[in-house]
């Protein structure tokens, strides 16, 4: 049972890992993007739209386009969301919290609108649409997963998007520490005036970080639909995973490599109620709260310890305007 639980925890954690890696990149540039839940939702629905029209128009569904089309649609959708956020907060210097929350509402609305439309087009009996073929391609596990017992189940049974999430997190983590761009990006989030004086184009960094971050986060939405939900889209099915991803950023102390483990812990806590016998509906909800409680505890812990590097980028949430001092 433990193996199964851990495997489910990992699968539950992957969307959170995508979301938090994307948000960490964004926040490292000083942009607090609370639109992540909406962006992940848009990433999911855009993938669904791509998959739906490919499945319904192509005579033969081939694996490569079946994966690439949804992937591309998802990336473009979340990129657009990132661009909206950057334009509003960086160019127009709108309040980041308000913009982010608006994007979440907007993204959820967009997702439900197109989701509902597709359900209608598909003339589905249930309030959901299913893309089994596409999902099967997405969920192809490594070939020897089934043969190696618990080891295979625990480490090899996932789809390529799951491994990609971990690899992206590791790369981003390395990128922060060991490249010029990473150093400059961190400087922008910590002290944009200093970065500006050092000749770093603050706005360009903010734009790029937010857009790339959004695209990565959007993949979390795609993974959720195509892998976790077996290609079934139902409106509002994504739940509060977007907020969990943002909580995970704090939990991981803005470090993508920490967030790999954090995502598994969060995933595990999120589904733990399934593995505890004899609990009612109300107690279930208490269990679902656990990730947030843990995040609050981490926040308290780092605040008490008061070490500056684990409290997040210093200029997080502030717009930068050179002439303002």
């Amino acid at each position, binding site marked *: 049972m433990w193996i199964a639980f851990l495997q489910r925890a990992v699968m539950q954690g992957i969307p959170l890992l995508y979301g938090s890696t994307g948000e960490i990149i964004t926040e490292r540039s000083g942009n607090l993007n609370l639109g992540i839940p909406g962006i992940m939702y848009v990433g999911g629905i855009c993938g669904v739209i791509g998959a739906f029209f490919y499945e319904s128009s192509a005579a033969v569904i081939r694996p490569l386009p079946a994966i690439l089309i949804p992937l591309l649609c998802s990336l473009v959708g979340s990129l657009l969301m990132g661009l909206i956020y950057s334009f509003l907060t960086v160019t127009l210097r709108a309040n980041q919290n308000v913009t982010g929350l608006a994007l979440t509402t907007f993204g959820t609305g967009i997702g439900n609108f197109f989701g509902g439309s597709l359900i209608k087009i598909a003339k589905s009996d249930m309030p959901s649409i299913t893309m089994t073929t596409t999902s099967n391609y997405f969920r192809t596990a490594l070939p020897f997963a089934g043969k190696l017992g618990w080891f295979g189940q625990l480490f090899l049974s996932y789809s390529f998007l799951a491994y990609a999430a971990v690899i992206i997190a590791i790369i981003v983590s390395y990128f922060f520490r060991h490249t*010029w761009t990473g*150093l*400059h990006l961190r*400087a922008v989030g910590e*002290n944009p005036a*200093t970065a500006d004086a*050092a000749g770093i184009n603050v706005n360009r960094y903010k734009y790029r970080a937010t857009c790339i971050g959004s695209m990565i986060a959007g993949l979390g939405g795609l993974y959720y639909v195509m892998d976790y939900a077996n290609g079934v889209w139902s409106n509002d099915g994504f739940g509060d995973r977007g907020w969990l991803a943002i909580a995970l950023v704090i939990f991981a102390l803005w470090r993508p490599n920490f967030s790999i483990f954090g995502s598994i812990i969060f995933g595990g806590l999120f589904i733990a109620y399934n593995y505890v016998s004899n609990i009612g509906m109300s107690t279930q909800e208490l269990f679902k709260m656990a990730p947030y409680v843990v995040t609050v505890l981490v926040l308290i812990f780092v605040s008490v310890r008061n070490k*500056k*590097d684990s409290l997040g980028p210093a200029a997080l949430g502030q717009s930068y305007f050179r002439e303002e001092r």
Partner: protein
Amino acid sequence: MADTPAIELQHITKSFGSTRANHDISLSVYHGEILSILGENGSGKTTLMNMIAGIYFPDHGRILIDGEEAIIRSPRDAYRYRIGMVHQHFKLVDVFTAVENIILGDNEESPRFNLKTAAAKVREISDQYGFELDPFKKIYDMSVSEKQTVEIIKTLFRGADILILDEPTAVLTPQEAEKLFAVLRRMRDAGKSVVIITHKLHEVLSLSDRVSVLRKGEYIGTVKTSEADESLLTEMMVGKKVTLNITRTEPKDPRERLKVQNLNCYAIDGVQVLKNVSFTAMSGEILGIAGIAGSGQRELLEAIAGLQRVKDGEIYYIHPNSGKIEDLTEKTTLQIREMGVRLSFVPEDRIGMGLVGNMSITDNMLLRSYRSGRGFFLRRKQPQQLADDIVEQLEVVTPDTRTPVRRLSGGNVQKILVGREIASSPTVLMAAYPVRGLDINSSYLIYDLLNEQKENGVAVIFVGEDLDVLLELCDRILVISSGEITGCVDARGATKEEIGMMMTQGGGEKRA
């Protein structure tokens, strides 16, 4: 000294709006020398140096580097000409290590990102000039002096041959300053040009080879340090006395109103900002406080107003009628008000501490009086009346009293602030730089208002920067230098030179 100057400034002029920060300044810096730029606050020293460092661009005039004209539009350009500047406010990322800060933005020169080789180069520079710095120490773990070292090494790392330091010793202890001077001398001996901006005479005399003096944006002259002494430099710095014709009446029935005894205060970073300050403010007189900006004036007023933590010492208030003595030490502003002490404070930070920029004139009046209102709802009638009165009597230029204060010009903002503080009929009025940024007419209006309060028997404390004004307006002048009172003179007999000397003495020498 080589024949061609490292930097030659020719007829540099720079204006900000209507104020002329630099006017027709020409001076040179040679290789292998330390040049001091000496001047009072607002004399244009920093502006001039910022033009060499690429922060500002001159309106007129040319900058020659090694005899060739240079166009410096950004700090990056400045580095290309091997010029580095250490600003008064450090530009460092707190959570980065020293070496990370040093290489920040340097990717064009060294495309490969390698902290280890960079750290080795930092150590090499440290050894060469005698700095002590751990390249992998985080900035937030560093003392102010270490942070300054990081800034200096940052310029040397990029190959600067001309190093400009803006008031480098303002934040250092005397021992740290001595260490810095030793390093600077070593740099000079290595053939680099060092320019330091300062107003401390003893530093100028002990460190530099030549001194260039600026006064009110104009170039006064350059002298060899070996041929200069304190009185010559002071005279160059403050200039001859100017007559302003501010009316000054004899204090009427002066009585002790506010007594400060042996006050000691520390800033958050542990630096002592006030040292054994003692003085008495009398009713019916204007007590001037003179000193270089940042010598503790702000902290002193804030300590009296209940906004600054006091380490030890006492602040007493003597009630005008009953003669009752109240202890104001370590009381909050609210407690002070509840004791019936009518203290008014015009802070130097007008929008921020004094007024709320986004609120209308009327609502800003309300901020001072809302406690006297009863009930849940605001009553705007009285503050509205007050706002109208102030606008009318002080000739505030504003569309109406509903205009947010932020949109008004500096002079008008100041009139509103001073007007509001006076309207609460204070017995002690403290004003910090009330005429800063104001034109002549507005300034005189403020002087008249202060004089009026004096006539009414208020103890006025006036922190000013223009010595001519202090000498004409005040009855007594208290001189503060590095948090210490270095003198208290009768303004009627004192000279500018005398006060200028007191402003620049003490501090460094005395503490060391």
